[in-house]
């Protein structure tokens, strides 16, 4: 090889931003992990409530059915509103909310509320759709066994959708990795932040490329783990 042109390996050794990349990767993992946890805690019940109050699953008692229709209408509207705002806009709109919850709008902490609020409605819709896929016969069997709604949800509906739910969590985790990178634009921390500060603002293409490479690896890993779990849990 010509000594005048540095090899890729030389470039890797000469690249002196590895510590920053390391910290940023860790930050991204924390942001994504914590947001994913809260997304599930918020989105799963929301999805279940959406399903239980959706048309076709309402009580035969007219007054109860009416309450269910109102609940469904309101939650569905909220979900749609949050999903229709582009995440970047939502990030900016939510700044006051974030400050109120976390005390700051910057860094890892500042990114988590908008991430959760931005993605939980998406996850909730995924959950709602998964529950719709559950064989209606199973619901009928639960009713015939005299199960309460709570028993039906925890002992039949959720176990039946578990493989699908894990798939939904995987999709959501990957979307979160992408969104968390976007929050770098408003000083969110993590790999996106690094890419914006070095790659975009200082024209350091190498940092930009490495950042993208790390994101690619992260996404691949999450998908791989998700697929494995789904396969293991699927008894169909």
């Amino acid at each position, binding site marked *: 090889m010509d000594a005048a042109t540095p090899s890729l390996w030389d470039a890797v050794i000469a690249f002196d931003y590895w510590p920053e990349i390391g910290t940023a990767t860790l930050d991204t993992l924390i942001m994504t992990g914590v947001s994913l946890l809260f997304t599930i805690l918020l989105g799963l019940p929301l999805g279940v409530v959406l399903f239980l109050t959706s048309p076709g699953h309402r009580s035969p008692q007219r007054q109860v059915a009416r309450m269910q229709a109102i609940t469904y209408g309101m939650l569905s509207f909220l979900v749609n509103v949050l999903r229709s705002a582009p995440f970047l806009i939502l990030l900016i709109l939510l700044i006051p909310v974030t400050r109120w919850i976390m005390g700051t709008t910057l860094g890892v902490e500042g990114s988590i509320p908008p991430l959760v609020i931005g993605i939980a409605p998406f996850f909730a819709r995924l959950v709602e759709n998964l529950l719709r896929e559950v*064989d209606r016969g199973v619901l009928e069997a639960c009713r015939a066994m005299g199960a309460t709604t709570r028993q039906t949800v925890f002992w039949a509906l959720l176990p039946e959708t578990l493989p699908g739910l894990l798939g939904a969590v995987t999709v959501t985790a990957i979307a979160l990795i992408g969104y968390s990178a976007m929050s770098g634009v408003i000083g969110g921390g993590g790999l996106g932040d690094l890419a914006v500060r070095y790659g975009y603002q200082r024209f350091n293409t190498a940092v930009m490329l490495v950042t993208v490479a790390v994101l690619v690896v992260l996404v691949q890993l999450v998908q791989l783990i998700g697929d494995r779990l789904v396969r293991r849990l699927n008894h169909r």
Partner: protein
Amino acid sequence: MIRIEGLGKAYRTPQGEFHALHDIDLEIARGDVFGIIGRSGAGKSTLLRTLNLLERPTLGHVYIDGEDVTHIDGERLRRLRQRIGVIFQHFNLLHSRSVSENVRLPLRIAGELSTAEQTRRVNEVLELVGLADQARKFPGQLSGGQQQRVGIARALANKPTLLLCDEATSALDPQTTQSILRLLVDINRQLGLTIVLITHDMNVIRAVANHVAILEHGRVVESGKVLDVFLNPRHETTQSLLAEIGLETEGAIATARSGSSRILRLTYRGVTALSPVLSRLSRESGVDFAILQGSVGRLQGSPYGQLTIEMEEPDDSRFQQLLVALANQDVRCEVLR
């Protein structure tokens, strides 16, 4: 056990009211195997579902063990349903749970047994349906017949006094159907359980039921003991349902030689069915018969026979003699031509 009085069910549809059930009166005794038969759309599924109030009747009453359950709800309704086992055409098992977990589900729902007692009960019912060695498998690994056995075990877990079967064998092949039906008969005998089943197949009724109601357009058009209904079907729906399993006479007459021959339908049951009635009569009266169609066997353990026979122009006095002789032998005789 169950009394249904003036039961009606109407649905509101964009085209107006649709009456799925009209003015149904039925009485089902304890320990009975009661079959409800009808073609699709006759309302049999709706009728079955009113028994555990998965479907609320719009008119009339359902009494179970003397208690009017038509309007109960909440906790009382759930308790009632826990005492009524249901098996379904498509089994409706949880695919994410093992066989034993599926059977445990109703026990968990009822919440009356400790975990250890639940396990014991699960093993007991799995033993009863012949699946003790499949407890750890998942429904997806079992055949249709085995899955229905799991369904039956699940339905029996809470020791119900009433078992509802919603087309329980319609998704199974004939051989598996027979084994499931045998299991139902065994359960009925062993546990003294009342069984109400709906089907579109007279073979199912013949194999297990002792009472039958024929449903058409939401009305009961005929009902009674299976033997009576099979040997003397009055309504045309009953006759055509019986025809599908080769138990009717109209077609047989068409196959008879045309002309002046006489056609008789003979029905006999009990010990008569076992004695050589026909050959003796033929010998004594000197009249020869051709058998056009017939069915001889057992219905609910009691022997029966029904034969459609044709005879070559006997003269009147001999014919009358023959009819008297038949009556003396306890054979019911109808002159069809």
